[in-house]
């Protein structure tokens, strides 16, 4: 079995993370921003698992599991907040939620 | 015995929480009065059992707090601290007594004052630099709200000015604290905020100079020294009477206390180096602010400027490097605490009755509020250093001690004796005398004025009796204070 080189994991992870950050910066829809965030999180997961495979360890996989659980919780809370805001304001764009400005 | 000091410090804080929880007006008032009286009695007990023949700090308590950073809960008192604690606790009793008739949000008012009392007592008894800074800053918050919520017309401006100004000074104080702690760590490998630990060091000149300036700026703002003094008149003018009493009597002393407690013993060489600067600023404070005082038409602003002038005498005595002068400077802190409290009470009473602080609106009051006229006069005499009252002993000691090494400076500073009499009597004349120049409309109002009530009288009697005691029999008090002066100058 040919092993997938570490560089492939890293490249994939960086691309996914870059996409996630890019999405967070350019998209205005709150649900999309949340999804971009999930993407960035999963990029990190890939990195953890890849590094584990390379080093033959399990710590990273434990972390990855934690992150998945955390991401799920975060998505739930995040979506809840978004829905609450939408019910209150009838908006879903980040440009219109600027109450926290200094 | 050792824990009594901590009890005295934290009892008001406990009271503050109780007041905040129960929120019943009567309860707040009497609890505050009760707690402050108990604190006063505890401090008085400690004062009477204080042994002035023994060097060092007494009633010490030391508990680990954040051991990894070398921070501990360490309190204790020496002669200066116990005297200031006694004055502070008395002034708070009087402040509560004076505030018995407060109607606007009384619960919050008393809770804030009680919290303030803890902070004030803590500053004077902390022996840990971190703890000291905590209390030092902790006092800002209640005072800010006291001025900002119960003040007069421009209260928000004054409160902001007070807060920003003193906070600005505190930042430098924090830097200074950090610098000596870091130096101690570099030298011994031990991180410690303990005052006694740092007392045993002798720092290099460069660090002394830097730290002296950093500490000094923090203290100078609080005292306040010229030219960082302009927050004080505004704060006093806008503050409610009890706030002014505490501000003048206690808060200003923190700066001068800091000079004696920290700057002199920790940085002795830098202190000597900066004598000319401090003397110059002190003389400017004495003469310039006395001129500012006589130019005022607002009673409280005048008294505020007179406070700055008197603080000039304190800084002069502190840095004269003489036992008598230092005794006098510390004595002045207490004497000024009493006299300024009494003066602000008089001014506050006039405002309560006439609703004006402006001398143009006043005049000829002496015949209509005779009790106040007498007590106001005695308060003023205490302020201008009249023999028989506390201020005289203090001024005499400061001038005597300063004259030894710096005769000309002392003599010039002595002109304060004349100028203070001039501005006080000039004010008194315009407020109390010259009835014939007052319009009939005002006189008609004056005729219905009510003189001092029982709680006013009691407040005045407490303060003025103390001023007389300190002025007529200063021997034991000076002995207690000397316990501090000797180690500060000897160390």
């Amino acid at each position: 079995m040919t092993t997938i080189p570490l560089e492939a994991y890293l490249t994939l992870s960086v691309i996914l993370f870059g996409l996630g950050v890019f999405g967070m910066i350019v998209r205005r829809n709150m649900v999309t921003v949340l999804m971009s965030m999930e993407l960035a999180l999963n990029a990190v997961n890939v990195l953890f698992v890849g590094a584990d495979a390379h080093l033959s360890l399990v710590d990273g996989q434990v972390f990855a599991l934690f992150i998945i659980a955390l991401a799920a919780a975060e998505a739930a809370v995040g979506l809840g907040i978004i829905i609450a805001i939408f019910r209150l304001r009838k908006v879903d764009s980040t440009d219109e939620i600027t109450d926290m400005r200094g | 015995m050792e824990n009594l000091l901590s009890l005295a410090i934290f009892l008001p804080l406990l009271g503050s929480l109780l007041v905040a929880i129960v929120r019943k007006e009567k309860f707040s008032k009497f609890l505050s009065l009760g707690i402050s009286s108990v604190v006063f009695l505890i401090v008085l007990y400690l004062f009477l059992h204080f042994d002035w023949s023994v060097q060092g700090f007494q009633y010490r308590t030391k508990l680990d707090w954040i051991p990894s950073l070398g921070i501990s809960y360490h309190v204790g008192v020496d002669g200066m601290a116990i005297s200031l604690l006694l004055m502070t606790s008395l002034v708070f009793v009087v402040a509560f007594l004076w505030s018995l008739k407060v109607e606007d949000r009384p619960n919050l008012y008393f809770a804030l004052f009680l919290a303030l009392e803890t902070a004030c007592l803590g500053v004077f008894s902390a022996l840990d630099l971190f703890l000291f800074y905590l209390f030092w800053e902790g006092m800002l918050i209640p005072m800010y709200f006291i001025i900002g919520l119960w003040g007069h017309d421009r209260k928000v401006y004054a409160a902001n000015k007070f807060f920003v100004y003193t906070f600005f000074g505190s930042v430098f104080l924090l830097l200074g604290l950090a610098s000596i702690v870091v130096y101690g760590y570099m030298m011994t490998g031990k991180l410690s905020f303990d005052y006694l630990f740092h007392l045993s060091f002798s720092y290099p000149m460069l660090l002394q100079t830097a730290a002296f300036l950093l500490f000094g700026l923090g203290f100078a703002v609080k005292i306040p020294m010229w030219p960082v003094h302009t927050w004080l008149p505004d704060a006093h003018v806008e503050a409610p009477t009890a706030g002014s009493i505490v501000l003048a009597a206690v808060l200003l002393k923190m700066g001068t206390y800091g000079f004696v407690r920290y700057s002199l013993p920790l940085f002795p060489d830098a202190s000597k180096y900066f004598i000319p600067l401090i003397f110059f600023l002190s003389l400017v404070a004495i003469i310039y602010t006395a001129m500012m005082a006589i130019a005022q038409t607002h009673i409280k602003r005048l008294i505020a400027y007179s406070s700055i002038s008197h603080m000039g005498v304190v800084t002069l005595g502190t840095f004269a490097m003489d036992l008598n002068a230092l005794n006098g400077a510390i004595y002045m802190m207490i004497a000024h605490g009493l006299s300024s409290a009494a003066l602000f009470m008089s001014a506050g009473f006039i405002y309560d009755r006439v609703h004006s602080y402006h001398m143009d609106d006043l005049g000829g009051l002496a015949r209509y509020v005779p009790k106040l006229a007498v007590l106001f006069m005695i308060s003023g005499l205490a302020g201008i250093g009249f023999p028989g009252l506390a201020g005289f002993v203090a001024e005499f000691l400061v001038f005597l001690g300063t004259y030894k090494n710096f005769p000309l400076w002392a003599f010039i500073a002595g002109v304060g004796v004349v100028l203070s009499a001039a501005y006080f009597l000039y004010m008194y004349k315009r407020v109390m005398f010259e009835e014939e120049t007052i319009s009939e409309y005002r006189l008609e109002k004056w005729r219905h004025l009510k003189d001092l009530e029982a709680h006013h009288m009691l407040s005045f009697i407490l303060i003025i009796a103390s001023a007389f005691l300190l002025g007529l029999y200063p021997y034991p008090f000076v002995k207690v204070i000397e316990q501090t002066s000797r180690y500060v100058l000897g160390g």
Partner: protein
Amino acid sequence: MEILVLISPLIAFLIIGLFGSRIGDMASAIIAILGSLFSFIFSLWTTSKALSQPFSIKLYEFLPLGDYTLSLGLYFDALSSITASVVTFVATLIFIYSVGYMSNLFGQWTFKFYAYLSLFLFAMLLIVLSDNLLGIFFGWEGVGLASYLLIGYFHTQKKSANASFEAFTLNRIGDWFFLFGIIATFYLFGSLSLLDIFGKVSEVDKALLGLACLLLFGGAVGKSGQLPLHTWLPNAMAGPTPVSALLHAATMVAAGVYMVARLYPMFENAPQSLKVVALVGGITALFAALAATSHTDIKKIIAFSTMSQLGLMFLALGLGDKMSAMFHLTTHAFFKALLFLSAGSIIHAFHHHVHDIYETGGLKKYMPITYGSFLVGALALAGIFPLSGFWSKDLIVATAYEVSFFWGVLVSVVSFLTAYYIFREGFVMFHGKEHFRHEHKEEPHESPGVMAIPMLLLALMAVVAGFFEGWYGGVMGVKKELHLNIALLSVGIALAGIGVAYLVYVRGLIDPQKAYEALKPLHTTFKEQFFTERLYHRVLAGGYLFYSKILYMTSERQLIDGLVNVTYPAVKGAGSVLRQLQGGKLNLYAFFIAFGFSLLLLITILWR
């Protein structure tokens, strides 16, 4: 027991001060009189003890000054106990007199008046009897306060309020010097006790001792109304007349002379300082005598006369003759109190509305007792044989001629002017036309017995006190002889002064109004006290106030506070720029996070 001399007025003060409003004005007056009387009786008793053997009493430890502990205490010797007796005697009579004088004000908080009087007496006795300099300073400031309260007794009037303010402030300038004199003395002797000082006085550095003496004398200048701190003294006449009498006879102004006499061993050992004392005294004596010739206020003439006589006493002290200065102080206390009480009697007769000598006139037939009293006082002041003033002034004249012809002539000129101005006042008020008819319907009446008896007693003393000269010199340890030629000379000069006044004001040889018109510039100069009062009020006091206000408006408000207030908009401006970045835009924040993180990453990589 001896301490009762000092504290019986204090007890009276405390009782009246605390309970005066309850016990009433009459009871307060009686308590004040009793306090003073007790003090007088005890001081006679202590005098008899002190004359045989001086003694001191320690009261309590007052103040630790390093290794030296300052104790308060009293010291009784011939000088202090005799002075205390004189002070309490005159004060008692004035207290009694004031019951009559103030009777129209009874029921209007007049107990205050007696409280102040008792405080005044207590403070004066503290000066006289203290055995250390700090105790003297306590009394020193105490008489300052009491005089402030009494001069401003009619404080509803602007004039009184200003006069009392001026008195206290000018006195405080003197006190400033005095305080530093005490401090300088402390460093010279290492002690403030009079006995320690007298014991070591010849051992210390002369130059520093001279400096200390000059500073102490500065205090005396303020308290005794000498040049240049004199303007408060004539203005102090705004107070009630018994106060003027007390102020000028027994207390306050006498304190300066007494203090120099008390510390005379110090001054003697610093001869340079005595020259200054003589110079100030001499100039003031002439200055005040000239001013007295041109005033027309009943009390102000006598006030200037006090200033002039005090100048003579300082001159005597400066010329090295302590005994005659103190003896003149004693006799002066009697006849000056007498003159003031007579003047008060006249003012009282006109219901306190008349203060100018030209509003009275011809009072001789209406007020015979007052006339007699005034005459005795005036003759004594002029120094006519055999009244008390003759004996004491003669000593000063003799000393002055002994030292130098210049001082002798000066004293003679002052004596001439003294005789002239006091008889000018007497002739205008008691002889002459009845000017009061213009405004007052009723005729003036003689004062009641409570006022007349003190006057008669003082008149008696003013006559006989001079005969005690030999005894007084004996107890002070000085022997003086009467110089016949000088005595004749001074009586002749005094008679000449009286004669001029008689010719002008009774015979009408020259019309005084026209004479004053003709000499108007001179007259104005004298009347305005060589324009010193105007200088002080307008230029110094006014200038200080004006400059303070200017400084407040510019330096304080614009410069210092201005700078502080500028920081607020500066910080606010900076904030309004920076807040643009915190627009609440979620995407922008995310960009900043990513950007910042990348930047850190970049730095970390490039750092290697």
